[in-house]
C-alpha cells in the first residue's frame, strides 16, 4: 500500500446533495487571496471550487497532474490516449466535485476517477476490436519527462517500465498497475476492474511473468548499482 492511497475509498454519490460534516474551516480560506492558493489544502481548494471559485480547481489540477499523468500513461501506455483520458477525468471531477465526500482524501477521489477514465478507454478500445496501438518512438523521450527535471537513470528506468508495460496485454497491465504500482489491494482492484479477486491475482501473476524478461536487464543494472544487497537478492544466492 503506497502512502498516497486510502484503502477505504468508495464511489462518490452523485445524487446526494453534499452537506459538509462540519469540518473546521481553515483560516487561510477566509483571507481568500489568490496568492494563498499554495497554502490551501486539497479539501479547501475543492470546497472553494464547489462554492463557485473559478480558479481553485485549476490549482488542484496543477498540484496533482504529474501523479495522475503517471497513472494514466502507465495504464494506457500511449500518450494521446492518456491525455484524452486525463482530460475526461478532470472534467468529470470538475463537474462532480459537489459529490466528493469530505472524509476521503481528495487525491484518492481524483485517482479513482482517473483510473476509471483509463479503464473506460481500454474497454472501448477492446470493443472496437484489436487495432494495435502505433509505436510512437518520437514521444519516448518526452514521456520520460524533461531532462532537466530528473537524473538520466531515473528517466531511463521510467522509460523501461513504460515500454515493458506496453508489451503486455491490457488486462494484465491494468491489474499490475493498480496492484503493484499504485498499491491497491487485490480486493480493491477487483472492485475497480469489476472482476473476481482471483482474476486480478491471475492477471498480476501472468503479467509479472511476461514483464520479467523485459525488465531483467533493468533489475541487473539496478543490482549492479548496489552490489552488496540487491545483487545478492537478484540472483538468490546466500
Amino acid at each position: 500500500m503506497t502512502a498516497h492511497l486510502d484503502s477505504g475509498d468508495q464511489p462518490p454519490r452523485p445524487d446526494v446533495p453534499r452537506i459538509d460534516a462540519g469540518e473546521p474551516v481553515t483560516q487561510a480560506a477566509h483571507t481568500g487571496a489568490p496568492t494563498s492558493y499554495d497554502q490551501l489544502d486539497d479539501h479547501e481548494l475543492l470546497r472553494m471550487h464547489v462554492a463557485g471559485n473559478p480558479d481553485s480547481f485549476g490549482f488542484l489540477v496543477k498540484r496533482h497532474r504529474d501523479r495522475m499523468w503517471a497513472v494514466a500513461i502507465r495504464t494506457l501506455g500511449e500518450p494521446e490516449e492518456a491525455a484524452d483520458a486525463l482530460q475526461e477525468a478532470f472534467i468529470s471531477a470538475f463537474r462532480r466535485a459537489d459529490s466528493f465526500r469530505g472524509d476521503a482524501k481528495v487525491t484518492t477521489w481524483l485517482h479513482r476517477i482517473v483510473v476509471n477514465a483509463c479503464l473506460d478507454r481500454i474497454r472501448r478500445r477492446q470493443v472496437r476490436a484489436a487495432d494495435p496501438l502505433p509505436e510512437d518512438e518520437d514521444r519516448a523521450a518526452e514521456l520520460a519527462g524533461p531532462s532537466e527535471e530528473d537524473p538520466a537513470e531515473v528517466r531511463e528506468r521510467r522509460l523501461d517500465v513504460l515500454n515493458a508495460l506496453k508489451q503486455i496485454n491490457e488486462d494484465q497491465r491494468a491489474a499490475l498497475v493498480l496492484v503493484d504500482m499504485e498499491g491497491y489491494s487485490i480486493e480493491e482492484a477487483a472492485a475497480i476492474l469489476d472482476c473476481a479477486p482471483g482474476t486480478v491475482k491471475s492477471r498480476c501473476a501472468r503479467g509479472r511473468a511476461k514483464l520479467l524478461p523485459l525488465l531483467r536487464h533493468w533489475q541487473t543494472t539496478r543490482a549492479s548499482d548496489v552490489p552488496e544487497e540487491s545483487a545478492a537478492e537478484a540472483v538468490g544466492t546466500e
Partner: protein
Amino acid sequence: MTESGLPTSEHLEHLDTDTIADLIENLLPAPEAHRAREHVKACPECQQTYDALVKLSEDLAEEGRADIPMPTDVAEHLDAVIVSESVLRASTVGVHSLAQIREEPRRHLPKLLGAAAGVVLIAAIGVGVVFATKDNANEGAASTDQNSPPADAVTITTNDLGPQIQQWLEHNPGAIMHGSAAEQACARTFASGRPNPNVRLVQPAKIDGKRATIIGLQGGSPRDIQVFAVTGCSEPGGVASPFYDTTVTLRNR
C-alpha cells in the same frame, strides 16, 4: 539456498515462469503448489526466477511511487480545458442543473458576455443583491412560518441547519437579511474574505444552545449556498468566528 546437492532437482524439469508467478500468488492447487515449492527450494535457477519475480513487484511499487512530469503540451491543453470549463460554468447562471450544462454546453456559450457583466454588476453593488433570474421571479409568494425564518433569533441545531436553510431559501428568492445592522455588518465583513462574498442570508440564531449567526453565501451557481454558523457577530464590534459550515444545493433554481 545453495542446497544444489538435493537429489530431486536434477531429475525435475525447471518450472516455467508462469508457474512460479502463480506459486507466488497462491494460485496453484495444493499438491502442485507443494511440488513447485519443493522444487524451487532445491533448484537454484528456479529460486532465482522466484526471487526475481518478488523483486520485480517491489521495483514496480517503488517506480509506482514516482510521479511522471506531464509533457508541457498536454499540461497546457489541460489547463485550457479547465479554464474553459470554468468559464462555461460561470456563464450558466440560471441553468437548472449540471446535467443540463453537460447536455447542451454549446447553447449556453452566448450567455457568457451577459453573465460576465452580471457578475461585475453584482460585485459592484455588493451585498443584498437579489438574483432575479426568470426562473425564480415567481417563487416565494407563499411564505409560511416554516418557509421563512423569524426576524429574531431562531433556535436550531447544527444537524437541522442545512435542510432548514434550504427550505428558507427555496421559498425566498431574494436575500434574507435579519438581525441588527451591526450583526449584518459583521456578516458582510466575514463574507468579504470569502471567494464568493455575495450574502444570501444573515439570520440570528441559537445553535445547539449558543448565540450564533447563520450566514449564507451565494455559490458559483444560483443553486449552491455555502452556509456558515459563526459566533461573535451578536456582540457590538464582534468578529465572526465560524464553528460549522455546510453547503446546500437548492432545487428548482
